[in-house]
C-alpha cells in the first residue's frame, strides 16, 4: 500500500462500498458491521433499560424483586412442600442460583424472539444490521443479570457467615464462559423463533409458555443428581443442564458437569446459533415483503 492511499484513508476514512445483491444464504454474524453500529447498539441498550421502568413505582428495583419472589416461592413449593433434594445446599441459595442464571437465558430468549414483529415499523423504514437489536437485548439483559448476581453473591456471603455448608470455588472463573454460552443459546433460539414468527404469528404466543415448560425440563428447581440414569442421558441433549450444574458447582460447591458435557453443550449451542443467524439473515432481507 502506498503512502498516498494511506493518507487518503487517514483523511477520508475507509471508503464505504455497499454491494446490494439477492440473498445468499450464509452463516455470517457481520461482526464488522455490528461494530460500526456500536453506538446504536448502546443506545438501544439504554433505551430498553430506561424505557422499561419509566412510570413504574419501584423502577429498577424490579430486577431484584422478581427473582427474589420467585426464589421464595420455589423455596416454599419445591423445597418445603415437595421436598425436592437440593444436593445438601440451603434451598434458598439453590433456587436463587437457578433462578438468576435461568432468568438471563429466559429473558434473552423471550425478548429476542419478538425482534421482527416488535420492530417491523423501524425495519421497514431504515437499514441497520438487524442483529443489532437482539445483540442489544443480550446486553441489556446482562445488566439485569449483573445486578441479580451481585445480590446473589450477597446472600451467598450471608449464608456462609451464618455457617451454611456452601463452597464457592475456582470454577467461578468459568462464569464468563457459562454466560456466553447461555447468551448464545438464548440468542440462537430467540432469533430462530423471531425469524419463524414473521411467517407464523402463533409462535409468538407459544414462546412465553414454551420457556416456562422448558424450565421444568432443565435442572432449575431440581439437581441432576435427583434424576435417574435414564433421564440423565436424555439431559445430554439439553445444553442448559450442564451450564446450570456448573454454575451451582462454582457458587455452591454442589452438582457439577464434566468437561465433555460442557463441550457437547457448547457444540449444540453453536449449531443452534448458526442456524438462528442464518435464518435471521435470510428473513432480514425479505421480511418487509411479507408483512
Amino acid at each position: 500500500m502506498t503512502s498516498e492511499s494511506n493518507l487518503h484513508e487517514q483523511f477520508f476514512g475507509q471508503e464505504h462500498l455497499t454491494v446490494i445483491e439477492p440473498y445468499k444464504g450464509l452463516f455470517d454474524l457481520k461482526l464488522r458491521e455490528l461494530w460500526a453500529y456500536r453506538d446504536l447498539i448502546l443506545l438501544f441498550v439504554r433505551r430498553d433499560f430506561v424505557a422499561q421502568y419509566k412510570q413504574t413505582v419501584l423502577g429498577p428495583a424490579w430486577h431484584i424483586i422478581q427473582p427474589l419472589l420467585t426464589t421464595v416461592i420455589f423455596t416454599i413449593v419445591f423445597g418445603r412442600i415437595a421436598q425436592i433434594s437440593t444436593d445438601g445446599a440451603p434451598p434458598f441459595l439453590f433456587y436463587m442460583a437457578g433462578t438468576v442464571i435461568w432468568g438471563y437465558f429466559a429473558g434473552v430468549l423471550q425478548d429476542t424472539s419478538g425482534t421482527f414483529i416488535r420492530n417491523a415499523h423501524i425495519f421497514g423504514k431504515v437499514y441497520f444490521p438487524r442483529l443489532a437489536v437482539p445483540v442489544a437485548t443480550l446486553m441489556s439483559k446482562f445488566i439485569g443479570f449483573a445486578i441479580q448476581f451481585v445480590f446473589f453473591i450477597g446472600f451467598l456471603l450471608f449464608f456462609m457467615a451464618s455457617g451454611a455448608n456452601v463452597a464457592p470455588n475456582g470454577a467461578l472463573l468459568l462464569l464468563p464462559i457459562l454466560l456466553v454460552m447461555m447468551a448464545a443459546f438464548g440468542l440462537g433460539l430467540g432469533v430462530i423463533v423471531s425469524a419463524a414468527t414473521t411467517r407464523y404469528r402463533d409462535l409468538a404466543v407459544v414462546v412465553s409458555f414454551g420457556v416456562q415448560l422448558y424450565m421444568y425440563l432443565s435442572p432449575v428447581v431440581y439437581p441432576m443428581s435427583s434424576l435417574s440414569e435414564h433421564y440423565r442421558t436424555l439431559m445430554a441433549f439439553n445444553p442448559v443442564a450442564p451450564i446450570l450444574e456448573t454454575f451451582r458447582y462454582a457458587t455452591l460447591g454442589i452438582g457439577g458437569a464434566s468437561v465433555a458435557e460442557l463441550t457437547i453443550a457448547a457444540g449444540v449451542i453453536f449449531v443452534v446459533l448458526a442456524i438462528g443467524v442464518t435464518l435471521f439473515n435470510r428473513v432480514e432481507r425479505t421480511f418487509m415483503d411479507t408483512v
Partner: protein
Amino acid sequence: MARTVISVENLSKYYRLGVIGGATLREDLSRWWARMRNKPDPYATIGQENTGNERGEIWALRDINLEIKEGEILGVIGRNGAGKSTLLKVLSRITAPTSGRAVIRGRVGSLLEVGTGFHPELTGRENIFLNGAILGMTKAEVSRKLDEIVEFAEMSNFIDTPVKRYSSGMTVRLAFAVAAHLEPEILIIDEVLAVGDAAFQKKCLGKMGEVASKGRTILFVSHNMESVQRLCNRGILLAKGQVEQMGSVNDLVAIYLRSATVDCGNGSFVRTAEHTRQSLDKSTISGIRLRHCDRGESTSFDVWDPIEIDFLIRHPSEEPIHDESIAAWFCINNSFGSPVLSFFQYDSEASTTRRMGDWPSIITARINALELPPGQYSISCGLFSFDELGKREIVDWAENIAGLEVGWRVADGRTFDQRIGYVISRCEWRIAA
C-alpha cells in the same frame, strides 16, 4: 468528471402477492396436507387458479439500469405502483432484490420516514441521539451537531422533556431537524416532506439543497412535482417497474403529467388500470368527457370559458349491492401536479346522494367560468361513499385521468398575458372621480 457513486445493473424485484403464506401455522399445515392429497388449496381465493400471473405475481422492478454521479440530485417520478418506493427500499437495503445488483460508493442515509424509532418515554435529547444513530450517525457526530439540531427544531426549552408530552407538530419538527442534519455522502429521501407545516418544510428543503451543494448525492421521490422540480436537476421516470425515460427533470415532469391520460379524442378520456385505487365491488368512474358549453367536446379552453365535465360511472352490478350512498368529486391539478381547485358534489343542490342502484351512469358538473391562468392542467376524480352516520370515505380515485389546456385568449378577443398566481378571479376596477 464526477465519478459514479451508485450503479445499478439489471436490478429486479419480484413480489408474489397474496400467496406468500398463511398467517398461521395451521393454515400452512392444512395447505400442505391438501397438496399431499391432491386437493385444491383450501385458502386460495375463490375463482382464482394458481397459475401464471393470476397468482398475483408482480415485477415491482424489472431490469433497472442506472448510473448516478457524485453530486447529482436525482428525482424519481412515476405513478403509484410504478416501483419508486421499491427502488428506494432496495437501495436502502430494507429489502433484497430478486436479481441483479447495485453498487454504492459512500455512506448512505435513507429517509423513508421521519422520526423512525422515536420512543415516547425518552426525552427529546435522548431521542435525537437514538434517531440519529438509527439513521447511521455516530454518537460523536450527533453530539457535535446537537446544538444545531435543537436550534433548527426551535425547541431548546423542551429538549429534556419526554417526547410523549410534545404536540404532534413538535415531534415532527424535532424529527425533521435530526434528518436535516444527516450528512451522508448519499441521501435517499422518499416523500417525507409531505408532513409538517409549510414553512418548516421549506426550511428543510433549503437545508437539503445546502447539503446537495456540498457535492452530496441525493435520490428523491415525491408526488409533489413542484418540490421535485425545485430540488432536482435530473430525473428518471418509472412505469411498471421499468425506467421509461431519463433526462432533465422538467421534461420528465411534463411527460409524466401528459402520459397519465388516455385521450380518445373529442374530449373523452378512458380510465385504465394505471389510475389506481379502484376496487371491483364498488362503483367506479370509468371515464370522463370534457365539453365546452357552446362549442361541444374539447380539451382546450380559454380563460373564463364555461365548461361541463361528464363522469361516466360503472356500477359493479345492476342490483345495489351495497347499502350506501355515493357522491362524486374531482380536482384540477396544475402542471406541477399540485391541486389548485377541488369540487365536491355534496356541496351542491344536486347532492341528493342516491342509493347506488338508482345511480345514473352519467353525471355532469358545470363550471360557469374556468378561472384558471393559461397552462396545462390535469383532472383527478373519484367517488365518495357515505355510511348511515353520514361519514364519508373515498371509494374511488382516478389520478390524472384527463388533461386539458387553458389558452391565452379571453372570450372578447384580448389575450391573457403571463402573470403570477395559481388561480384568477374577476375583479372590478374603479377610478375615484
